[in-house]
């Protein structure tokens, strides 16, 4: 009997040490979302195209961009966007690094789709739609590279999915090479994309969007003939027209307007997954408990003409009194900016400091949510959202017909065809839509002026002042200024943020390539001056 236990004992002990080899399968657990089954059917491609759209430039950044120009200001110095206005941005600055990551993530998703879609068996994917998915991916990749090249200049340009090792071996492509590729992507995408969509596909890239973005890319790189032709092609599609009411275009009422060619789509119902926006909460006025982290500055206010088509310095209609200066102005001023005396939320916006104003928007440098200029953004701020500030659903327009018309006019002027009737007509369409007098001749300055006021706070001014090389003239100012008001002693005062001197070193025409990327890739060259 004793030996029986000895045997049993040795058995347990032996088993303890040999049991493992056949137990490998026991340790082989698999994640519920393992990748093995991906890229086998059409739905996989659809999911990937969708996620590529989500890397598009968004409301937060596009409005922020105007806060880095002579249109607006980042409201607080400790905000990470502030360094892009006082010349101190360096390769460590975090804001640009975030955008670098976002657009390369978009590029990587587009590249992943382009590299894998052919692996889906033909029987499992509709061949027509497959062409459209490829075209959508190329279109989106073009949009991402257009953002990257206009922000950072010569950047690396992967055109297929890369591993970390491959990424670390890449060198800068020149801006010209990148623009060539962007134009090639839009050229390839345009014919394969439909003119329009129905149902839940509305909002995807269309042929018009590809052509319009081609015009923008060509214009940014000074290829004016290509730009003019592409813009003309959009106009010739005959699908697009200007929304009658300029102010309403940037509200829920304006969604799906024939003026909108391409937009970053948001939906109120999508709050749980973050596909809504927070425009009201982030950029709305303190009147409605919003933050207003980017605010208009005086320079932009002064840029709006009088209704007679003259500037405030030349028009007899201009009354510089603090409460009269906003009268008889280009209606786009009221649609874009909240200023003292403007009607707002059932009352009058009054941002003069206390005790002149008792309203929440009263100038107060101590309160972070109150505008340092006394102005707040009006465009895209829809009072429908005031009780639901964190959950906005207005689509943010990335390309609209007015932009195409102005690009056409600009390209024509640049080509020395300022007297082209079609260019003048296109340009005047934009002005007459807001009842501004039509011009009879067209100059470079006219086009630039019109773009600034028409497209303020749509994320385009930053790239306009870069390509026009006027940033070094318009950016440096001793202080950010805002509203006028008459203080208790009867003296007229212009609100100014005392420590907001702006500088613009030449290097700032391009943002620095993030240091984190340079640290990983010794082959990359930093932009000059950093």
């Amino acid at each position, binding site marked *: 009997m004793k030996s029986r*236990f000895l045997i049993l004992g040795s058995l347990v002990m032996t*088993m303890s040490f040999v049991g493992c080899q056949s137990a490998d399968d026991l340790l082989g657990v698999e*994640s519920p979302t393992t990748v093995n089954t991906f890229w086998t059917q059409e739905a996989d491609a659809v999911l990937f195209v969708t996620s590529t759209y989500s890397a598009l430039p968004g409301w937060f950044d596009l409005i922020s961009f105007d806060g880095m120009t002579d249109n607006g200001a980042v409201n607080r110095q400790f905000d990470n966007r502030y360094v892009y206005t006082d010349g101190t941005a360096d390769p460590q600055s975090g804001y640009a690094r975030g955008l670098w990551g976002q657009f390369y*993530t978009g590029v990587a998703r587009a590249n992943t789709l382009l590299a894998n879609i052919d692996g889906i068996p033909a029987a499992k994917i509709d061949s027509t739609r497959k062409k459209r998915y490829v075209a959508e991916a190329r279109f989106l990749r073009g949009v991402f590279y257009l953002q990257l090249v206009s922000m950072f200049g010569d950047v690396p340009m992967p055109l297929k999915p890369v591993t970390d090792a491959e990424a670390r071996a890449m060198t800068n492509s020149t801006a010209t090479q990148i623009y060539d590729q962007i134009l090639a992507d839009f050229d390839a995408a345009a014919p394969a994309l439909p003119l329009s969509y129905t149902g839940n596909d509305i909002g995807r890239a269309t042929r018009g969007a590809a052509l319009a973005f081609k015009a923008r890319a060509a214009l940014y790189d000074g290829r004016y003939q290509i730009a003019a032709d592409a813009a003309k092609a959009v106009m010739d599609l005959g699908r697009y027209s200007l929304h009658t009411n300029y102010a309403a275009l940037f509200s829920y009422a304006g969604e799906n307007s024939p003026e909108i060619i391409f937009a970053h789509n948001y939906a109120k119902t*999508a709050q749980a*997954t973050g596909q809504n926006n927070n425009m009201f909460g982030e950029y709305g006025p303190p009147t409605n408990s919003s933050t207003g982290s980017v605010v208009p500055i005086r320079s932009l206010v002064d840029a709006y003409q009088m209704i007679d088509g003259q500037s405030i310095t030349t028009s007899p209609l201009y009354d510089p009194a603090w409460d009269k200066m906003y009268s008889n102005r280009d209606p786009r001023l009221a649609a874009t900016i909240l200023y003292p005396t403007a009607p707002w939320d059932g009352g009058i916006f009054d941002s003069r400091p206390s005790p002149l104003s008792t309203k929440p928007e009263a100038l107060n440098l101590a309160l972070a949510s109150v505008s340092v200029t006394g102005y707040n953004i009006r465009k895209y701020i829809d009072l429908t959202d005031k009780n639901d500030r964190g959950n906005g659903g207005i689509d943010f327009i990335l390309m609209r017909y007015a932009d195409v018309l102005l690009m056409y006019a600009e390209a024509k002027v640049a080509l020395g065809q300022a007297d082209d009737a079609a260019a003048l007509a296109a340009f005047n369409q934009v002005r007459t839509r807001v009842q501004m007098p039509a011009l009879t001749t067209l100059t470079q300055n006219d086009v630039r002026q019109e773009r600034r006021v028409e497209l303020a706070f749509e994320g385009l001014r930053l790239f306009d002042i870069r390509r026009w090389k006027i940033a070094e003239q318009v950016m440096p100012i001793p202080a950010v200024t805002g509203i006028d008001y008459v203080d208790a002693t009867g003296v007229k005062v212009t609100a100014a943020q005392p420590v907001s001197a702006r500088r613009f070193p030449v290097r700032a025409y391009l943002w620095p390539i993030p240091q984190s990327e340079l640290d990983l890739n010794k082959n990359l060259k930093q932009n000059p001056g950093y």
Partner: protein
Amino acid sequence: MSQIKLSVWWRLILSTIALLVAPSIVFAQGTGTISGTIADSMGVPVPNARITVDGATKATTSGSTGEFTLTGMAAGTYTLRARLIGFREQSQSVTVTAGQMSSVQFRLGRTAVELETIVSTGYATQTKANVTGATEVVAGEEITKRPVSNITKGLQGFMPGVTVQDFGGRPGADGAQVRIRGATTLGNNGALIIVDGVVGEINNLDPLDIESVSVLKDAASAAIYGARAANGVVIIKTRRGSNTGAFKVTYDGYVATQTAQNMPERVDIRTELQTVNQLYVSSNLAPKYTDGYIDSTARGLDPFKYPNTNWLGLIYKSAPMADQTVRLSGGNDLTQLSLSANYFDQQGILTTENYYKRYTTRANTNFNISKRLTAQANLMLMDEKTVRPRGEGDAEFRAIHDTPPTSLFKYPDGSYSWSKSDYNPVALLREQGNVKSRWITTSINLVGAYALENGFKFGAQFEGDNKDNRNLEFQPVTRFFDPVVKPTTAHMDNNRTNSIDSRNWNFNMDAQLTGEYERSFGPHAFHLLTGYEQRQSEFDNAQASRRGAYNNDLQLPGNGDPTLQGTGSDASQTRIIRQFARLNYGWNNRYLLEVDLSHDGSSRFGPSKKYGTFPSASLAWRVSEEPFFKQHIGFIDELKLRGSWGRLGNDRIDDYLFQETINLNSGNYSFNNVLSSGATPGRIANTNIGWETTEQTNGGVDIEVLDHRLSFTGDVYNKQTSGVLLAVPISALVGRASPTQNAAGVSNVGWEGAVNWRSEVRAVNYSVGFNIANNKNRITRLPGGDQINTNSLRRVGEPIDAIFGIKAVGIFQTPEEVAAWATQNPKTGPGDLKYKDQNGDGKIDANDRVVIGDRFPHYTFGANGSVQWRNFDASVLLQGVGKQDIFLDGALIEGPTWENFFPTYLLDSWSPTNRDAKWPRFVYRSDHNQNAPGSNSWYVRDGKYLTLKNLNFGYTIPTHYANWARMSSARVYVAGTNVYTWSPLKGLLPTEANPGSTRATYYFQTRNWSFGTSLGF
């Protein structure tokens, strides 16, 4: 290996059956009974002493009156041993005659006898004298002397090298962080918790259910738990019944009152308002308050017109806590059991619904099925509930940070006022809904053991536990206006309800087989243990949410708007397979050797990295057992030298890191206002993901002198961890998250010491003890370079998450001094902080940041004393930290700058008349940033402290009175917890500085006074 692939589960089942059905024959012979009593040297009965019979498996435990009985003893002469922690072991010889009862009396002397303490070493227990590694043990009674809500808090101060950091008194979430010998990894640094033989949780155990807590600190002790033991092991045993020949009912309970401890003190209102006025004036503004206003406020003329609101007082209150256990325990030769029911109720100290309640029933049973076969069945059912306000944290923060005392709480009509700021902390606390959580845990733990007389012993254990959790978070529709000051501005509004219901399900299954062989011949003693363990854990989660319910009473998601909904789910499972063996060898009880080997496999690792082998060895030399020593150095009773080396693993990393995954529902996009699902590539897989490996060397000494009354234990150790998991930065061009790699290294070097004295003077028994430890933590390898996170840094050569910022070297006294110094800020002037220009570029900026502090506590110590005289007993426990850097941020250093909470210590701020100040001058509003740019060393303060952690006074009612009340024993006591803290940081309790946050935690530590009884029936 054989080609027959029998599944491991089958093998396990078969062998278990084989073990259980093996024949067992009980020989019935003429037997007799031994009955006896155990008392201390004063003749006071000693309950719970363990009585064993040399050379036999029989054992029992003394009952409440010190009595015990051993039945069924074959005729013959036996040596009986009686032992209990705190007493000297004693043996007596007794002869049993068939059919007769023999009696025996023990008188146990109280001693220090640290080395006689029984330690759980994993799969076995040993006396501390025979342990070769570094271990600690605390008896359950020691912990329950301190009525605490959570056993982790109860461990504070007892064991050197076991650091307990307490982050406040939030009910149901007040478990302290327990670290053994520093932090070995950048991830989870918690110790492995073993409850009744299997991996368990420490936080929800009721302290009254604990028999003992053992801690295995060095690699050699912990090595039997190989792959999971790198952060040390805590072994908890719950109370069991014993063979007392009878059953008894006991009741233990206390009621306590909790109050917030060490709340910062506010300056008087007149000083506060005058200071604010001065600030306005110095910023060229008109004074904010008129003299009349200040005077009226200070005199409290009209509380509505001139409010002086004590916001902290409106947010915190004192709250009760109670813990009660009824237990039936005892047993006979066949069965011993402990059946207990426990109810714990802790109300929160916030002035809104806020509590934790726990109901536990536990049945721990032993069956002596035959002479050889024993079995245990341990069953547990636990129900836990908490309610916590959603506005918690926010409210406390705003009360200190944003709301001046001149802001009114409520108008006479009961509506909230937001008069002087946009915050009303009380409204934030009480009106934002709450989170209701519930956990139901069931566990079953079956143990079988079969012992042979030839030294073989086989054991099998199966454990399964299931934990269901439900959290219901509800945010009501709220819209609060200030009806008087700003009737059109909503200060707190949420126009839709939001209800989030999430369910989590955890299921664990654990099976173990062990075989042991024990043999002594001549001077040699062997003990071999081998074992096999298989563990499987599954986790599932589902979540559903909807907004927009019709009203605030409909709190389930199903009542919300179907177009405003969200769902989510997740699942994961892990498996572990282990084989382990341990050999103990002793020669003449003098030279002790232990060798451990553990071979562990985990499903969390890459295909080729699943298994790891973890060896260890330890040696001890009981010098005092040497003949020469016994002859010549008689005053030293015990002297033991210990040395060990071992390698341990850490598998507590995320699941599936080695697998390529797709993130579904990631990168969603709303086309045409309809949400479309997206998919994005998951984290890059690292197929080579493997163990984090810690190698630890330990040296120690145990000494007992003066007739065992004085004991000393000391250890030094060196712990080197390599392959620490780290997400190494990758190029953004890849467009995906970084893969995790075994890349970083961490070093921990330290020492520990404990000294205890226990003696008696006439009728007074007393003991005192002191322990202290220090650990130095350093990162040794960090690929990818420094990781900077606002004000903390990870850098090679520095401790994990070192405090990082600008070095402040003093306070500017004159404008000339400012001008001569590096450029800081255009507004810098006398009274502002002076920063060191580290890189000499003439300006102070982020490039001048250096390491300015170490968040880890150093020289952690505890001191305890106890005294017993007749029926009275008293004990005291002190606990403290000798060196610790605390980084202060926010309102606690801003005070009148932002017109918020103005603590008294800030009165010592710089002014032309107070140049030798502790704090820089006050500056108006955002200009304050010139004194606190990010973080600077001025606000890194000495966080050393000493806390009177516990006081306990008890009285044992004399037996005859107790008997008169039909009780066998009765003790009543009064105890205080967190009674007082001494600290250079007045009003800022340093134990509350959470390393994970830059601000103090405002759920204050509580001070508890409790009254309790222990009754035996």
